[in-house]
C-alpha cells in the first residue's frame, strides 16, 4: 500500500515513495535504508515494489503518472522510459548542480539514457549489459560472430552434445533488445532521431538473417519463442541443456548458486559480432532514478535520487544482486571483481561500447511494432529477408508517427 501523503507538520521525516522493481538480493531495500539514514531525519524512503516484468512496471507507473499521482516521488526508470516520461511531463529535469553531481564519472552511454533534449532526468543507479556465456567443457574457443556460434552449435549437435544457443525470443521487450543489439552490431540503427526511422537496409538484412538462421537451425532451443532472461534463459542454461547463451550478468551468480557444476564450466566472452570486421555493440540495460513531476517535495526527491545513484549505492547493488555499476572507476573495486571474477573488465568494456535502444517519446510504439513484425524469430526466412524488412520499415514509420494499431 502507498503511504499516501508526504508532508509532515510535526517535523518528523518526510516519506518518499520509491517505485522500483524488487531485486532478489535485497539491494533496493538496503539502498533505501542507507539513504534514509544519511538524510539525518529529513526524509524516509519507502520502497513501493513494482512487478518483475519491465512492461508491467511501466504500465503501473504510466497509469499513476498519467493520473498525476502525487505519491510517486522517486521512480526506478528502465533506461528506455526516459524520453517518454520526460516528454509527457511526468518527471522533472534535475537542476544543473544536481545533474552534474549524479552524472559525474558515469559512462557516457549511460548518461545518454538518462537524458532528454539536453537535460538530465535521471540519476544513473545500476547499469547492465549482456555477455556471451558458454560452456568451457564443450567449447574450446568462444565464437566471435553469430555465424561461428551457429556453426559450432551444429557441430556439437552432430556429436550428440548439448548445443543450443539461448536468446530472449519471447514476444516482449527482451526480443527488441536482441534485435537492437544485432542491428547495432551490424552497423545500423532503428531510429536516427526521436521521430526518424533509420533501419539501414544492409545492416538490417544482416541482423534479420542472424535471427532467422538461428531460429530455424538446430541451434534454436525448443522453447525459443517463449524464452525470457530467466525461464528459457539462465534457468535453462543451469540444467546443462545449452552450450551458449546471451544474457545479463545476473546469470553468472544465479548459476553459481543453483547449479555449481554448471557454474564452474561457465565461461564469458564479448557479445558476438554480426559482421566479422565490426566490433559488436552489446545491449545496454539498467535503471535511472527519476523524480515524479507531481511530488510535493522535489528538493528532497533530488537529494534522495542523488544518494540512490551515488557510488556507494551502486556498489550495494553489485554486492547484493550482481548489478553492474554505472561508473567505470568502480570496476577496479574488490566488490566488483568479486562479483565478476575474471570478467569485470569485460562487463566494463561492454557497457562502454554498448548499442543503446533508441531514445524516443514513442519508444513503446517502436517496441510493439518490432515485436509485432518480427516475432516469432522462426518466421523470418534467413534466405529472403526482403519482405520482413519492408514490413518492419512501414510498421516502424507508423510507430514514430503513432499511427496504426500495435
Amino acid at each position, binding site marked *: 500500500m502507498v503511504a499516501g501523503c508526504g508532508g509532515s507538520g510535526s517535523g518528523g521525516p518526510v516519506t518518499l515513495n520509491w517505485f522500483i522493481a524488487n531485486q532478489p538480493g535485497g539491494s533496493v531495500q538496503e539502498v533505501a535504508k542507507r539513504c534514509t539514514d544519511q538524510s539525518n531525519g529529513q526524509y524516509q524512503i519507502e520502497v513501493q515494489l513494482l512487478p518483475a516484468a519491465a512492461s508491467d512496471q511501466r504500465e503501473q507507473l504510466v497509469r499513476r503518472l498519467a493520473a498525476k499521482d502525487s505519491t510517486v516521488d522517486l521512480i526506478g526508470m528502465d533506461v528506455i522510459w526516459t524520453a517518454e516520461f520526460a516528454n*509527457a511531463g511526468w518527471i522533472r529535469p534535475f537542476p544543473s548542480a544536481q545533474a552534474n553531481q549524479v552524472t559525474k564519472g558515469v559512462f557516457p552511454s549511460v548518461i545518454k539514457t538518462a537524458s532528454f533534449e539536453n537535460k538530465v532526468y535521471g540519476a544513473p543507479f545500476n547499469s547492465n549489459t549482456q555477455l556471451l556465456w558458454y560452456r568451457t567443457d564443450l567449447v574450446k574457443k568462444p565464437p566471435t560472430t553469430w555465424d561461428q556460434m551457429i556453426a559450432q552449435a551444429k557441430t556439437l549437435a552432430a556429436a550428440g552434445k548439448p548445443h543450443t544457443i539461448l536468446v530472449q525470443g519471447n*514476444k516482449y521487450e527482451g526480443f527488441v533488445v536482441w534485435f537492437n543489439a544485432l542491428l547495432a552490431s551490424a552497423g545500423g540503427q532503428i531510429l536516427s532521431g526521436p521521430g526518424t526511422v533509420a533501419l539501414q537496409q544492409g545492416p538490417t538484412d544482416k541482423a534479420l538473417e542472424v535471427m532467422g538462421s538461428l531460429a530455424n537451425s538446430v541451434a534454436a532451443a*525448443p522453447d*525459443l519463442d*517463449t524464452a525470457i532472461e530467466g525461464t528459457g534463459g539462465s534457468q535453462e542454461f543451469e540444467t546443462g541443456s545449452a552450450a551458449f547463451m546471451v544474457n545479463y550478468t545476473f546469470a553468472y551468480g544465479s548459476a553459481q548458486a543453483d547449479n555449481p557444476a554448471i557454474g564452474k564450466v561457465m565461461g564469458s566472452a564479448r557479445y558476438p559480432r554480426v559482421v566479422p570486421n565490426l566490433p559488436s555493440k552489446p545491449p545496454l540495460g539498467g535503471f535511472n532514478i527519476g523524480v515524479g513531476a507531481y511530488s510535493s517535495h522535489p528538493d528532497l526527491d533530488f537529494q534522495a535520487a542523488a544518494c540512490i545513484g551515488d557510488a556507494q549505492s551502486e556498489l550495494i547493488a553489485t554486492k547484493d544482486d550482481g548489478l553492474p555499476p554505472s561508473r567505470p572507476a568502480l570496476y577496479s573495486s574488490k566488490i566488483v571483481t568479486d562479483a565478476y571474477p575474471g570478467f569485470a573488465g569485460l562487463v566494463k568494456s561492454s557497457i562502454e561500447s554498448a548499442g543503446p535502444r533508441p531514445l524516443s517519446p514513442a519508444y*513503446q510504439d517502436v517496441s510493439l511494432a518490432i515485436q509485432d513484425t518480427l516475432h516469432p524469430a522462426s518466421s523470418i526466412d534467413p534466405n529472403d529477408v526482403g519482405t520482413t524488412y519492408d514490413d518492419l520499415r512501414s510498421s516502424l514509420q507508423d510507430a514514430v508517427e*503513432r499511427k496504426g*494499431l500495435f
Partner: protein
Amino acid sequence: MLCAPAVIAMLLVTAYPIGYAVVLSLQNLDLRFPNETSWAGLSNYGTVLSSSLWWQDVLNTVLIAVISVSVELALGMAIALVMHRAIFGRGIVRTAVLIPYGIVTVVAAYAWQFAFLSADTGFVNPALNIHVNWFSGHWTSLAVIIMAEVWKTTPFMALLLLAGLTTIDDGLYEAAKVDGANAVQRFFRITLPLMKPAILVALLFRTLDAFRIFDNIFIMTRGAQNTESVSILGYNQLISRTNLGLGSAVSVLIFIAVLIIAFVFVRLLGVRMAEGRPGAT
C-alpha cells in the same frame, strides 16, 4: 416514475462511460503527448478498420468464441442432464460443478499455463509422454486458451440449461414413453424443442462473454503467436500506448460488435429474455 432511480443509476454507470469513450474515440489523444491533442473526427475508426491487425484479431476472437461456446453447449447439456437426473447428493453435485466458475479467471489461467508449460512446472507433457511446446505455436496456444475457457465457463452454461430442464413437465416424458418413444427420440422431440428459449439465452450470454475474452490470453500468451483478441488489442492501445483516441475507437467497435451479436440473438433467433421459459410462450 418509480423506476426513475434505476434509470438514473443506469445512466450514471453505463451511459456516461460509454458516451465518454465515444467522445475520446473522436480525438487524437495520447497521454504521452499531452500538447498534441486535437479533434480527429472519424479518423481513428478509419485507422482501426483499415488495419489488418484488427481484422486478424476479430477472426481470432470469433474463432475462440464459436469453438468454446459450441463445446460448452455440448458439455453443459450433458452435465445439466446428469444433474437433473441425480437422485442423491443433488446439492453437492450442483455445487461441485460450479467450482471452476467460482475460481478467479486469472488464477485459473495461471494454473492452465503452468500445467502446459514445457519447462519444469508443466505436468501435461510428462503425463501424456509428449514433447509439445504448447505456447510456441498458434494452434496449440489457441487450444490451451480454448480449453481453459471451456473448463471455466461450462458450469455456467450447465446451470442455465438445468434451469430450462427443470421447467419441462415430467408428464410429457411419461406420455412419450407410453407412446413408445425411446430416450433419443424423447431428447430430440421433447427436451430440445422445449428448451430452445433456455438454450438461446445461455448461448447469448456465453457468446457475449466469449467475444470479450481477455484474462486467459493476457496471462498465457499476452497475444503472442497470433492469439490476440480484440480486447487485448484495445488494452494495448489504451494501457500500454496510452493512446486514448485509438484505444477508445477499438473499445467502441467492440461495443458495437457486442450489440450486433445481441441483436442477432434477440431479433433473428427470437430469444425472449423476460419469458425465457417454455411455459410462458
